[in-house]
């Protein structure tokens, strides 16, 4: 649903209209232009009531359900930053909200924003510092159980082939573009060739690079399939993590 008001989106670099998804006991807001996640809020009991309304009923930011006036319960300024981990999100308040919602709907309720931990992620990056940063980002947010670091393309292809041969396909590959031995796009093409030959589905690829995503790059992403791009230098470093999570949500569904 579209919310009233705007909020600054670091990806778009401007004040943007907000979309919001009422999921479980949470309201997940995002930029209406680029889809970047901008905040998360635990629902109150009246908000849970809103969530349990019949399917298909229109949802507005300001509305009056069942004759009881309900003030808009989310404004851009009231958005709390998302909790760092799934565990920290399950506060007493949210657990109560989930319980109420589960009782109301008779269905299992999974809080929006809860993190699905990926079993294995490969990070291919020639900079040891950036490999460490990426590893920290993935592990501190419980996004990945295992992070395999590779410092160049051939080292990754070797490890990737070995993992596939052992039946241990990674759930995500984070790829730099400019690397000394092989360009990241070539690495991805080789990766796709190996996947095709071994009869496995395309592993999601997240290009995390300083290279500008121009038209040829977009065409390369399209040809590779199941691939997204985030520019390292885009946005405030403090929100870069959020941006990555938002892209991962679309790419591999790390949030449910």
């Amino acid at each position: 649903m579209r919310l009233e008001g705007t909020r600054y989106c670091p990806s778009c670099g401007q004040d943007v209209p907000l979309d919001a998804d009422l999921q479980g006991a949470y309201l997940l807001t995002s930029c209406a232009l680029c889809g970047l996640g901008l905040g998360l809020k635990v629902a109150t009991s009246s908000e849970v009531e809103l969530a349990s309304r019949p399917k298909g009923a229109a949802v507005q930011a300001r509305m009056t359900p069942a004759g009881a006036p309900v003030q808009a319960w989310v404004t851009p300024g009231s958005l709390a930053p998302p909790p760092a981990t799934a565990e920290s999100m399950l506060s007493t308040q949210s657990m109560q909200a989930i319980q109420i919602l589960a009782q109301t709907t008779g269905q299992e309720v999974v809080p929006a924003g809860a993190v699905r931990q990926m079993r294995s992620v490969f990070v291919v990056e020639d900079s040891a510092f950036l490999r460490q940063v990426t590893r920290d980002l993935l592990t501190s947010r419980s996004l990945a159980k295992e992070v395999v670091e590779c410092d160049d393309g051939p080292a990754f292809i070797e490890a990737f082939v070995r993992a596939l041969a052992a039946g241990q396909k990674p759930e995500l590959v984070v790829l730099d573009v400019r690397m000394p031995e092989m360009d990241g796009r070539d690495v991805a093409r080789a990766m796709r060739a190996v996947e095709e030959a071994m009869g496995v589905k395309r592993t999601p690829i997240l290009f995390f690079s300083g290279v500008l995503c121009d038209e040829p790059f977009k065409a390369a992403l399209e040809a590779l399939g199941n691939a997204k791009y985030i520019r390292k230098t885009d946005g405030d470093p403090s929100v870069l993590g959020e941006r990555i999570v938002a892209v991962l949500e679309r790419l591999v569904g790390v949030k449910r």
Partner: protein
Amino acid sequence: MPHGPILIAHADGGLVEALGASLRDQPAMPPLVGAGDGATLLAEYVRAHRAGTPPRLVIVDLALPRLDGRATALSLRAAERGLASPPAALLFYTAEAATDDLKALLSRCGRAVHLQRPTALPLAEEVRRLAVAIEKLLAQLGGRA
């Protein structure tokens, strides 16, 4: 383990076709499998390995679509290590002379040789010479098939 096909990825499709026909006439010569680009060649290699017939000889051009010869060769070597497969002999058959970059690539790949493609030679003669070179390479590798 039985030997697999000879793989070739070359920008000149006519050359690949003529070479395939020439090698077919030779007794006990492995079949030639052509790939239009480096990524397809890599896929063919992995497929052949999984079929239990890893290629002993791979021929690559440098100028290839999708994945150029350099990236193809490096990917191939990486895939071989990942599959715990002995490295195939690599023949770079290119119009380019052996530059320092190419020499460094040969050294990096190991078990690799470069053969400069002759210019102004009729295709039939070029293919004949290349077939002889392939035969010699396979002989050095220990028998044909």
